[in-house]
């Protein structure tokens, strides 16, 4: 077991390395004029110096002055040595380089930038977010909890509603109840997040006026005490949470139903029936507990979604959660935050997968971890 975990952890590191490399290359391809625009004012005010700005840009390869040796002069073939500075982005001084050399320089600049990013990241420094003017780690850890609270409530509601319905559907397979549950579950799965969100806003917020339109709290109100503020937040969060629950309920319902059906076909259920247990005992003592095995392992798989935020839902409802923060950062090209957020999600995914595999072995004694 310990050996297996160690092996999996090492593999996870390898995977994370691959993911970070992939994301870094993609992020480097993004258009970069945002940095200049963003820091223009600060530069004029003198709050940061040109050297600071250059250091930030260097880290993400936004300003690579690369020193290269030029080879031979094409005309007469005499060797020509020298150090040339080449601005990677504006291609100043790149005239003497041919395609291959340029590619090599680009590669070198990518490798150098990535190495520096990795060096910082390993020490827990994900850099400074341009948009939020704070360190990426701070922004993530402060906005994470709003998303977490929303999805925790959403997930709890989802489990409370979906599991009983799934069990009922399985016990009445091919009945009217089963068909209704299946169709509703399928509709939940088929609804686009943004459409449901927009629909909710239109109907319950704009037309009926039951709930406030977007945001986490009423900015125009001054709250007497914390409890009032909490109530206002809760009022704002009803629509997003309902949206999340409707969207996710279908999947869990179907999952429960499938597992329950599988369990109901097992030999021990027949045995339980044969020895004269009541239908209630068969279903809730024998079948239901075994249905929970895959469901429990599924919880670990929810980790990335819970901490990583629901990007589209948060965007539609303008909630200041991490998903919306990331979306805003993405639209303006906030390179450090985008990079940090993606890595955050990747790490959560790796942990989630590992935990759910381990949970499986813990919950179900029939599963043995070998290797």
């Amino acid at each position, binding site marked *: 077991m310990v050996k297996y975990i160690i092996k999996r952890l090492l*593999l996870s590191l*390898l*995977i*994370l390395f*691959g*993911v970070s490399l*992939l*994301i870094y290359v*993609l*992020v480097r*391809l*993004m*258009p970069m004029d945002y940095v200049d625009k963003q820091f223009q004012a600060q530069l004029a005010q003198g709050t940061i110096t040109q050297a600071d700005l250059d250091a930030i840009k260097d880290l993400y390869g936004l300003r690579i002055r690369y020193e290269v040796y030029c080879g031979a002069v094409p005309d007469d073939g005499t060797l020509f040595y020298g150090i040339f500075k080449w601005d990677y982005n504006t291609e100043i001084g790149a005239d003497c380089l041919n395609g291959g050399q340029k590619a090599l320089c680009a590669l070198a600049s990518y490798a150098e930038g990535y190495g520096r990013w990795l060096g910082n990241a390993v020490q827990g420094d994900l850099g400074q977010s341009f948009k939020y003017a704070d360190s990426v780690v701070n922004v993530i850890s402060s906005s994470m909890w709003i998303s977490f609270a929303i999805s925790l409530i959403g997930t709890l509601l989802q489990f409370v509603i979906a599991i009983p319905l799934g069990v009922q559907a399985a016990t009445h397979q*091919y009945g009217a109840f089963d*068909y209704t549950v*299946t*169709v509703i579950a*399928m*509709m939940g*799965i*088929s*609804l*686009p*997040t*943004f*459409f449901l969100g*927009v*629909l909710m*806003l*239109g109907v319950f917020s*704009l*037309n009926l006026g039951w709930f406030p*339109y977007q945001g986490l709290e009423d900015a125009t109100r001054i709250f007497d005490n914390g409890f009032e503020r909490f109530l206002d937040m809760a009022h704002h969060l009803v629509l997003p949470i309902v949206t999340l629950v409707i969207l996710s309920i279908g999947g869990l319902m179907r999952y429960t139903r499938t597992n329950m059906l599988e369990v109901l076909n097992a030999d021990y259920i027949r045995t339980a029936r044969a020895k004269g247990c009541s239908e209630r005992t068969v279903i809730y003592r024998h079948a239901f507990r075994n249905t929970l095995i895959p469901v429990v392992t599924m919880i670990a798989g929810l980790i*990335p979604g819970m901490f*990583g935020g629901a*990007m*589209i839902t948060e*965007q539609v409802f303008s909630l200041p959660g991490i998903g919306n923060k*990331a*979306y805003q950062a*993405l*639209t303006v*090209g906030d390179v450090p935050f*985008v990079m940090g*957020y*993606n890595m955050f*999600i*990747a790490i959560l*995914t*790796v942990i989630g*997968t590992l935990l759910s595999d381990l949970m499986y072995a813990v919950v179900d004694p029939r599963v043995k971890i070998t290797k």
Partner: protein
Amino acid sequence: MEENKILTPEMEEGEVNNEVVEEEESLSDRVKVVSPGRLVAKRFFRSRLSMIGLITLIVLFAFSFIGPIFSPWEETEVDYSIPEKKRENYLTTNYVEQLDPNDLFVNGDLFACNPLSGVDYDEDTGIGNYYRDGKQIWFKVEPGANKAVFVSDENGNKIMHYVIEYSWDRKTFNQLGKVEAKHWLGTDEYGMDVFTRLMYGGRISLTLGFVVIILETIFGVILGGLAGYFGKWVDQVIMRIVDIFNCVPQFPILLILSAVLDSMDIEANMKIYYLMGIMTILGWAGIARVVRGQILFLREQEYMVAAEALGLSVPRKIFRHLLPNVLPQLIVQMTLGLGGLILTESTLSYLGIGIPIPGAAWGTMISAAQKPEILQGYPNLWVPAGILIVLAVLAFNFVGDGLRDAFDPKASR
């Protein structure tokens, strides 16, 4: 099905037992022989939900691909008629201020920059004002001219400094038109027919879904097949790549890539092909995983040992004996995947990084609801598109589920 394939080479050698044939004949007199394919089809067509899904799909396809033929409007055709009272507000500004020779001239295109943005302007009197360098500048708009000169400052910010002969007939097209016989679902902000655009939007979503799923399957089958069949280091390498793609968050990456595409100045109508490529690259890993798992399982089956013993070549073993048995799983995966792809595409279009306006896509049409006044006052603009997305995804899910049940040999019904 599997046994037949293994027997085929032996039967070619002519060692067919006559007794067996006679027995089969007598059996077939009494019992109707149903091939596995027929059995699957029978089970599939008996399921009510999958039939509903199939019919919905056929209707949707007809709507999107045949419908536009009968529509009097084109995808991006603007209705220039004015429905009720005729309003003609030719906005034309006259010479406002002497030009500064140091300013940079940019000849403005009609839609490149709305001259009235950032400008306080009264439509009825034609008098407006704006601020420049802290100085309030007044101008008067007069009819009958059609050209504009914009001036930009050093930072490239467009400031309406000097406008001549500019005309923009603002209300002469049928903007946000009512639901009527001419426009079954009204017109959008740009005066384009919503109902017609729904049809063209369906073309985009359905075509994109099919192309991407086929490409994904090709990649997934090749890589998953290699991993599953050869095992060892091939498996290790491919599966670690699959793991990496599994850990990459999809939407952020799609957003990054679309920003990259924007910076590359790609034509709007070419963007969909790039989108297809990107979605394929991000999506093949799931199919590869399924194929690999299935092949790992099938590789250990007795009939594969038999195939080995018969000395069949590797391609024959893979293409004749392994892949046909992966096919049922694959078809189910593809059908269910199609629904997911339509959702992804529409979400991207909603976020404004998929199919850009004036191109029609269901997601793009819903994005109009980001404006509260449209969200509240014009549900005919965005609700139908949402319903069509739900219908399409639901139909693919129903069909996929029906196929899965039909292929399942353990299914009781």
